[in-house]
């Protein structure tokens, strides 16, 4: 019985079958994988939106980014950055930038949501790029445990384990994530703004991104089980606290122990 099985496997027809099955699986797998990357480029905008967006762009952005978004010595080209980049940079107030520095900080938003959408429409019309994320991935309805694990592997080294910010080189920093809108967190992963690396949908799938957003939402809703957070920035704040108040208390008690009663 066993011998018969092995003999039949060596037949030429069997080999052909195995090869064609293998090709089918790998080809199918490839199609699935590429479709995952492609979903980020979608959303239709009307010609009117695009032309309105272009007007806003020319009035507010073109002096640095160039009349055709080709970029200049002062600012990068915006061709192919997609609506997600516009929504993130303008929607968090980072753009329009104020002065040059190591990093553009988050500040007061200068445009209305509609204006941001129009500018995004114009930039998206120049070349395909990351689109505004779908609402279903922004509701913080995912798995916070899995999101936490992904956050610790991919994000925590810069942003700190609870997203409380962290320093980089030469004045750059990974900002505090507390209070960030889900949409902006998603977009930041997708586009890799400024010095943040890109985490595309093949690396962290839209559902994984939703899990990470869920983890961040969980952190905001649940107080630290350990008590006083002291900014959650680790040994600097905690060390300073215990050196001043902990050691201070010990010194005070020691002085009292040694002092003679009145």
């Amino acid at each position: 019985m066993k011998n018969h099985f092995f003999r039949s496997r060596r037949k030429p027809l069997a080999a052909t079958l195995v090869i064609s099955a293998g090709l089918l699986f790998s080809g199918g797998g490839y199609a699935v994988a590429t479709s995952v990357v492609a979903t980020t480029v979608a959303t239709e905008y009307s010609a009117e939106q695009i032309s309105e967006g272009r007007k806003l762009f020319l009035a507010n952005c073109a002096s640095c980014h160039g009349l055709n978004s080709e970029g200049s010595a002062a600012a990068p080209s915006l061709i192919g950055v997609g609506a997600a980049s516009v929504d993130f940079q303008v929607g968090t107030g980072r753009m329009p930038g104020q002065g040059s520095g190591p990093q553009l900080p988050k500040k007061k938003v200068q445009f209305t949501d509609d204006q941001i959408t129009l500018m995004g429409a114009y930039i998206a019309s120049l070349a395909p790029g990351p689109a505004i994320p779908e609402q279903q991935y922004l509701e913080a309805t995912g798995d916070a445990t899995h999101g936490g694990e992904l956050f610790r592997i991919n994000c925590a080294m810069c942003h700190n384990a609870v997203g409380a910010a962290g320093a980089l080189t030469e004045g750059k920093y990974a900002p505090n994530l507390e209070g960030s809108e889900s949409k902006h967190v998603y977009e930041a992963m997708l586009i890799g703004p400024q010095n943040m690396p890109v985490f595309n949908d093949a690396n962290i799938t839209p559902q994984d991104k939703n899990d990470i957003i869920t983890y961040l939402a969980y952190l905001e809703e649940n107080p630290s089980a350990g008590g006083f957070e002291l900014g959650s920035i680790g040994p600097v704040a905690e060390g300073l606290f215990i050196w001043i108040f902990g050691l201070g208390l010990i010194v005070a008690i020691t002085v009292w122990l040694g002092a003679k009663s009145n």
Partner: protein
Amino acid sequence: MAGKDLEKGFEAEGFEHDFESGLAVIPPDKIKDPGLEPHRVRMTDKSPAKARNAEVQVAAMFLVSVLGSFFALWAYVAFPITEDLSTVRANNFFLGLGMTLSLFGIGIGAVHWAKTLMPDFEVTEARHQTRGSEDVRAAAIEIVKLADSESGFSRRKLIRRTLYGALALFPLPALIVFGDLGPPVGNTLRHTMWKAGTRLTKDPTGIPIKASDVTIGSVFHVIPEGLAEMHEHKLEEKAKAAVLLVRLAQEDLNEAPEKTSWSYDGIVAYSKICTHVGCPVALYEQQTHHLLCPCHQSTFDVTEHCKVLFGPASRPLPQLPISVDAEGYLIAQSDFLEPVGPSFWER
């Protein structure tokens, strides 16, 4: 200079020098022994009312301790730890507060009792000389001599020498046993799980990574294929084999001619274990291509084989030579060609 001249020299400068008891130089303006402070009578010794007050205070402290103990017992019941982790906070805080009061009350009360009510007088105890008296020293030498003559230690050379031999050799078996305390390190510091053909997979899922998935500016945190499914020694293997995968524009890479085949279309893979003390190096700046270690700010240049730009690390991060297989998945060409992580003795 002879001893006598030295002595005269010191005397001329007004120094006393006692050549009999060592070489200590005692300057003439040395601080005088202030002696004991004058005895100060406590209020509790002068006034019975104050003493009564102090008594009440001590009793109050002990009462605080009693209340603290009851409070801790009550808190343990009132703030139970449930499935919800945040309940730990209130439980620990109030239980700890009660226990602190119960111990602190006893301690503070006892010290206050001793300081205010127990007898108040000073005691002086003079230091004695470390050196024994001549009689004691002579007696000790006599004992040693007696032991030597009775045992014949100096006389019986055969016994003495065999004893020396026995004493010299007895620690050797212990040394051999110490060798069994842990598994031998062997070659484990020089090799990781990576070998030719191992696929690069995502941490923590173990999903293999296609070269086409890694867009420019992307960072992937990578573990070798098979690590995600491991049950034993998983963390040990991960601690050695963790890799950071980055894609740069090909023109940004400044590769050494003999290492151009180690990257694939601008995708480079480096060990994530810092060569300083082994922290995970993973703070990647997309625009400057600097890779930063969170522990001591060692900075590596991804464009030039992760050479050290700044910080305490002294060696570049080891590069994992990569390639793609027939299905487009990224694979390792081999293990790292040098040991990963911090320096060690035989490196």
